[in-house]
């Protein structure tokens, strides 16, 4: 149960080179976590729902990509686009027919409802794709390595780091510059007021949820060629996403990015320096942040 932790370990000397290299490894892991946590924190910030099944949407993104790209032989990029659309549709149904009806309820019910979805998605994935982990081949143009501090570093990881950064800029632009982004921010800060001046809140909420679902799916889809896709990954990923969003501040996008980088690099270094207590350390950080500064390092939204 430790998906998300880097699988690459280095047996070499624990010197400067290793630290730099391991930092890069951590950074590429961070980017999956960032894509995952971004959607979770946006949905929490705007809708006020902590989506327990968000990790399962990440998992679904991986499985859809496996089908389109690995089984049906669709090209890499269209396959990823199709997976995003498919998970978007799943997200639409979740929000429109289930979550929408329990917004006024206690938070506990939203956690429980979305927990129910974890169980459903996990078994549905087993029914459709079977229980075994599936790893489709990497697209040819991503194969190979570049030399970083004298060691081979996969090109694909560089691509992931680039994509993560690009998505960060794109989301920031989306919320700062576009009309839709402004409406989202308006309803995040005052739902009623935004509704009163003509924002269609229910539709906007559906849109935000679908957007968050697609971000998670992108993380899962991009991970397909290098990570293991298996049932149960959703449950493992959501815990990572919780840790990240709690550290950065629930509902805070910048916090999610920094939190992802912290957790990603920390587990990369942690596995190198203190392999035994790496997992413990990450949860300890989460608990300490919650106790000392529950709004997170960057301040969250109070819900």
């Amino acid at each position, binding site marked *: *149960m430790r998906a998300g932790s880097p699988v690459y370990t280095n047996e070499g000397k624990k010197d400067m080179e290793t630290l730099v290299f391991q930092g890069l490894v951590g950074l590429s892991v961070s980017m999956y976590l960032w894509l995952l946590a971004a959607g979770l924190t946006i949905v929490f910030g705007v809708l006020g729902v*902590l989506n327990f099944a968000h990790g399962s949407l990440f998992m679904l993104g991986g499985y859809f990509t496996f089908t389109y790209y690995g089984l049906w032989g669709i090209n890499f990029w269209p396959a990823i686009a199709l997976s995003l659309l498919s998970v978007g549709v799943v997200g639409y149904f979740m929000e429109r027919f*289930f979550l929408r*009806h*329990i917004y006024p*309820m*206690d*938070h*506990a*019910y939203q*956690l*429980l*409802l979305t*927990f*129910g*979805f*974890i*169980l*459903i*998605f*996990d*078994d*549905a994935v*087993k*029914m459709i794709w079977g229980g075994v982990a599936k790893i489709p081949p990497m697209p040819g143009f991503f194969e190979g390595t570049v030399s970083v501090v004298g060691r081979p570093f996969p090109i694909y990881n560089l691509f992931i780091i680039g994509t993560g950064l690009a998505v960060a800029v794109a989301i920031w632009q989306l919320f700062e510059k576009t009309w839709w982004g402004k409406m989202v921010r308006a309803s995040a800060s005052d739902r009623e007021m935004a509704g009163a001046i003509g924002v269609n809140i229910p539709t906007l909420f559906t849109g935000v949820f679908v957007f968050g679902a697609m971000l998670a799916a992108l993380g899962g889809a991009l991970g397909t060629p290098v990570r293991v896709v298996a049932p149960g990954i959703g*449950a493992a990923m959501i*815990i990572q996403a*919780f*840790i990240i969003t*709690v550290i950065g501040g*629930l509902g805070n996008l910048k916090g999610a990015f920094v939190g992802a980088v912290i957790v990603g690099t920390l587990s990369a270094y942690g596995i190198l320096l203190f392999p*035994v*207590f790496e*997992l*413990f350390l990450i*949860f*300890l950080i*989460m*608990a300490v942040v*919650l*106790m000392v500064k*529950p709004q997170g390092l960057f301040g969250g939204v109070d*819900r």
Partner: protein
Amino acid sequence: MKSRLAILTLVVLLALLPAYAGKYAVYVVIHILLLSIFSLGFNLLFGYTGLLSFGQAGFYAVGAYGCAKILLAYPSLLVGIVGGVAITGAVSLLLGYLCIRHTRIYFSMLTLSFGMMIFSLAWKWRDMTGGDDGLVGIPRAPLEIPGLFAISMTPMENYYYVVLALAILAIALFHRIVHSPMGLTMQGIRDSETRTACIGISVRKYRLISFTIAGLYAGLAGSLLPPLESTVTPPLAHWGHSAEPVLATLLGGIYTFSGPIVGSVIFYMLKDIIVRFTEYWQICLGIIVVALVMGFRGGVVGIFARKGGQP
């Protein structure tokens, strides 16, 4: 009067169980009783005090590992159980002090992180916990007080009676707790923290008491496990296991006394029955959970009682 008769009948039926049912039924009922104790404690925290914990499995595991360590060193059932519960009490008092600073989602996240810290200790602290192999070969030690009596626990039926007696005790005690002024105070905190604080009640103190009792119940359930299974493993502490009392309580009914017990029976039977027909029992459980949250928040007991189902 009627309900007393029903309870008495149930107790008699349970007491005679080994006489008319097979070993497997006895084994299943022990598990249901353990889950009932576990869920009751959880519901004191959730249903009565309004705090949703996702780390209860951590306390369950502390009880299980504590009892297992004791039994491996000193094979006496009484010492094992009392020791396991005492250790869990201390741990839950300490962690409770840290957790009850927050409510709502922050409380859930904090309990989740502490629970997972316990999980990572169970998983990685190989010298102490046996790592991912867990602890094995735990004896089902005799129930004895040196010089007074000693009862062998080798037949499962004997151990069943120990569990049954402790479960009845725990349930009766729980009934006392929730109907005492302390239990009412907890419900007051759930309904309105501000109002309760305004009439001069220390909200934190009662939250801590509730948290500790919930931990003790989890510890008791956990302590009773190693003598039955003779092994304890890290998944006992994982948050997936924390979800079991949550689901059982939700199934049975959150704001009712008997909800967690009824829910535990349904949860276990559901699992047992569905697994016979399909390996996909989780999806059935998931659909039931979604349906319950969408439409029947009072749970099964709520449907029949039509009184406990307040939102």
